[in-house]
């Protein structure tokens, strides 16, 4: 059986370490489903953070997590297609860093299916795994103070879309009109961990 390490995250929280992101998504779904007393269940890249209020979890967290990993795989999430105008200010720089032409950068960015690994940074911001290895570039040394909403960007092993205007240190490839987060919508976030995303060039 896969062992899951549980670390304290304060007096009302715990961080579970798992092997990879699919495991984190599975464990998060199981903990959310089985333990009503949990307030937050937050998948990370290879972790799941849980918090509770007054009542500590009645069940052992590692036992629930290990049972989830031993069971049948959960069905994958939804498929989401995002239409992108590839006119971002860093397209040329990314081409320079990777030795590819801008057209090849776009083709490779559109050429894979991404997995939503977790959400963070801003409401609705999904960290997408599955980036073409040739497109792995470091984030900017100096983050921009303003990145417009809908900006499609890459940094390290991730791609992502900025849900609203915010500061940002990722490399900007293009823009989409998709609304990644709307507090009045149910659910408010367009993407959820486990979903698959493809980018389509306009």
């Amino acid at each position: 059986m896969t062992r899951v390490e549980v670390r304290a995250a304060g007096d009302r929280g715990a961080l579970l370490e798992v092997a990879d992101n699919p495991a984190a998504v599975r464990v998060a779904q199981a903990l959310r489903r089985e333990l009503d007393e949990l307030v937050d269940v937050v998948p990370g890249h290879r972790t799941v953070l849980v918090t509770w209020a007054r009542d500590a979890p009645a069940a052992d967290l590692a036992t629930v997590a290990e049972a989830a990993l031993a069971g049948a795989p959960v069905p994958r999430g939804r498929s989401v297609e995002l239409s992108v105008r590839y006119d971002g200010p860093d397209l040329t720089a990314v081409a320079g860093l990777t030795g590819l032409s801008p057209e090849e950068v776009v083709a490779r960015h559109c050429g894979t299916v991404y997995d939503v690994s977790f959400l963070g940074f801003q409401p609705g911001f999904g960290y997408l795994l599955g980036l073409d290895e040739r497109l792995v570039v470091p984030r900017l040394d100096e983050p921009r103070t303003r990145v417009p909403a809908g900006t499609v960007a890459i940094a390290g092993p991730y791609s992502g879309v900025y849900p609203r205007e915010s500061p940002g240190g990722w490399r900007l490839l293009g823009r989409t009109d998709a609304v990644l987060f709307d507090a009045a919508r149910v659910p408010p976030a367009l993407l959820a961990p486990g979903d698959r995303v493809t980018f389509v060039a306009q």
Partner: protein
Amino acid sequence: MTSLAFLRAGPLTTVQDLGRPGLAHLGVPPSGAADRSALELGNRVVGNDPDAAGLEASLVGPTVRFDGPAVVALAGADAGATLSGRRVVRGEAVVAVSGDVLELGRCIGGARAYVCVRGGIDVEDTLGSRSTDLLTGLGPAPLRDGHVLRIGSEAGLPPPRAEPVVAAPVEPVLRVVPGPRHDWFAPGALDVLLSAVWGVTPATNRVGIRLDGPSLERRTAGELLSEGMVTGALQVPPSGRPILLLVDHPTTGGYPVIAVVATADLSAAGQLAPGDTVRFMAFHP
């Protein structure tokens, strides 16, 4: 229905309730009152539910005029509040009549003062909360001069009752639970955290408190993959000086967390002001 007119909003006055717990997996910070105990106390005093929305004023409080009758109480830091010239004691409900002006000054003994009104501040909720989240922009915008807020209904509320307000210690000692990433640090780093006197820098807001003191050295230079963060986390960036995450913190982060402030001490953390000092002691629940 009574409303509150902001004659002077102060440098940062926001509407706060107990925030948006349970949405961190969407990237939504917990938000809510930075000193939750103070908001809850103020709400109890005026007869509100604990999660009714009140005003949170940072460093210098607002001046507001009541356009109708209201029952109001102050909590948190002492902002030397007066109601039309009469001193308002924290933890006691006072009755305002139409035209009364509540004036708060500079906060003493803490960074944040709370104004609770019977019936609560009546603004539209966003994702179940009326709190202003400075990181993400969720909730109502910070208050500006000239803004007007409505006060909610008092129907069915229990009578007001006074409560003593305990003065905060000058140099608080916050209890911390080691981890979850204390093993990312050099041997002795935890002892440094627990023995140093930490200064609160001006880079301090509802998102987090940048502390100044000795450097907490890493064992390895590797990059941590992003993981979920809790309020009270002492996150350590490459500089080695920890950042204490407060209520508007990002839900995930990539710097290792050496220790987390105990839940019972989070309200005290929310009162730390630039220039204060703070210490930490180990707590094993």
